[in-house]
């Protein structure tokens, strides 16, 4: 039985490999090209460094990189969490209130047009170099996609399901928890994921504009010192951070709405 299971696992791995070998090959090819093109085209080290040097020099500066990852990670997570906590109830309220839909909703749609990152210098001039202005920028970047998707989510229950719940005499709360909320979750996650992708962007740009720590700060400083190797190391950790946040949101999606994932996969 165990060997049978083992065989199945092996078969699954082979199947995966068969589907993705081209991608893996391309990926490896890309890094090889990067590595050797610097020699071929005689690119100066202060402009671009090969990946092997990025790894070597990055490892030598690991302590600083890890600490800055922590700093930027904290800004990102806090801003994102506050955005979720505030945006979800607000989206819900707007979806169910015709007054809010005619007042706050158009206002939010207008603000959504403004590039939030443009506020970053203002917040930094008001609040200084610390954690708070960065959290606010990340919050602003994440808040709108979550609110707008939540409004869409809670407004898109089908006519039939609405009538079905009415025909059972079910109360507002019971209907909400048994039908409206689960029906809305897939669309809510569209907003959560979009926000997760943009959260680290917000944090990094806010740090570019004014800070004395964090990965954005690091990338800016080492680039000024003609150290593209360390800049790439910083970018690598920033990417890792973004992937972690996105991975966590995806994991939550998988745990909360496994049925939706299965349907998506079946299609």
């Amino acid at each position, binding site marked *: 039985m165990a060997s049978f299971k083992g065989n199945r696992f092996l078969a699954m791995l082979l199947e995966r490999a068969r589907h993705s070998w081209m991608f893996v090959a391309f990926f490896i090819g890309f890094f090889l090209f990067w590595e050797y093109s610097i020699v071929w085209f005689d690119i100066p080290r202060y402009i671009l460094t090969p990946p092997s040097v990025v790894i070597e020099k990055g490892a030598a500066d690991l302590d600083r990189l890890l600490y800055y990852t922590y700093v930027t990670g904290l800004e990102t997570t806090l801003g994102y969490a506050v955005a979720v906590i505030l945006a979800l109830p607000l989206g819900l309220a707007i979806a169910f209130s015709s007054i809010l839909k005619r007042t706050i909703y158009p206002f939010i749609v207008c603000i959504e047009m403004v590039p939030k990152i443009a506020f970053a210098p203002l917040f930094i001039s008001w609040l200084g170099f610390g954690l708070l202005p960065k959290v606010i920028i990340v919050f602003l970047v994440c808040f709108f996609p979550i609110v707008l998707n939540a409004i869409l989510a809670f407004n898109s229950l089908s006519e039939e399901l609405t*009538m079905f719940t009415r025909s059972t*005499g079910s109360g507002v709360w019971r209907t909400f928890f*048994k039908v409206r909320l*689960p029906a809305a979750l897939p669309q809510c996650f569209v907003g959560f994921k979009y926000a997760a992708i943009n959260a680290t962007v917000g944090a990094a740009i806010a740090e570019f504009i004014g800070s004395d720590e964090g990965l954005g700060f690091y990338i800016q400083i080492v680039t000024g010192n003609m150290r593209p190797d360390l800049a790439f190391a910083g970018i690598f950790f920033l990417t890792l951070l973004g992937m972690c946040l996105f991975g966590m949101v995806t994991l939550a999606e998988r745990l909360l709405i496994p049925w939706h994932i299965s349907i998506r996969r*079946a299609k």
Partner: protein
Amino acid sequence: MSPGITFSEVKKVFGEGASSVHALGPVDFHIEEGSFVSLLGPSGCGKSTLMLMTAGLLKQSSGTISMGGGEVIGPRTDIGIMFQDNTLVPWRTVRGNIELQLELRGLSTHERRDDIHRLLRSVHMEDFADRHPYELSGGMQQRAAFCQAMVHEPKTMLLDEPLGKLDAMTREGIRRDLQSLWMQEKPTVIFVTHSIEEAIQLSNRVVVITPRPGIIEKIINIDLPFPRDFDVKNSPEFAAYVRETQEIFRSYGVI
């Protein structure tokens, strides 16, 4: 007022002014308790509208509908409804979807485990209780939706084109199950369809509705014995009913 369902001068106009649509009526008729009545008409003639008004989910523009001696003034919770698009939710299994009807009504699902199993067996779905809707064929989904609509044992059932999107063979099988269930429990059934044959095979009476604005052209009593299997469907009497109904739609240029 008598038991059963009575429609008096029921009319529905959607919207107001120049852009208003006169969808239905005025409609006057009575459905006896325990009978199986089909609403037959081309699409857009107001069948769903009439059904939703009967359920109290849509308000008529004028006229009254009464059910079981009381006027319909809001959503009726004592009936079972199958909507034109099924109300199976994707996050629950077949069993979970059936239980949803009970849970929304605040009824215990635990006490009715056996009932649910029996219901599923009566439509040959007992092996699919733990499947999700997206894993089922269209016919199985409709069978599941049917169980969801009648698990609370309503005395009145409103079925809006439950077989509309299915292939001919699947329809035949579900019709047979539907008929035997109706013969056992004898609920009052309003069955919406645009299939002439289906209406005649299943019903005590067929209410023939004209193209929009839908009004009742004729109510045909089907005096054929139940259960109506293939022998009945091949009989000259059955053919005569089909012809009679076809004549009506031909005169309206529908077919």
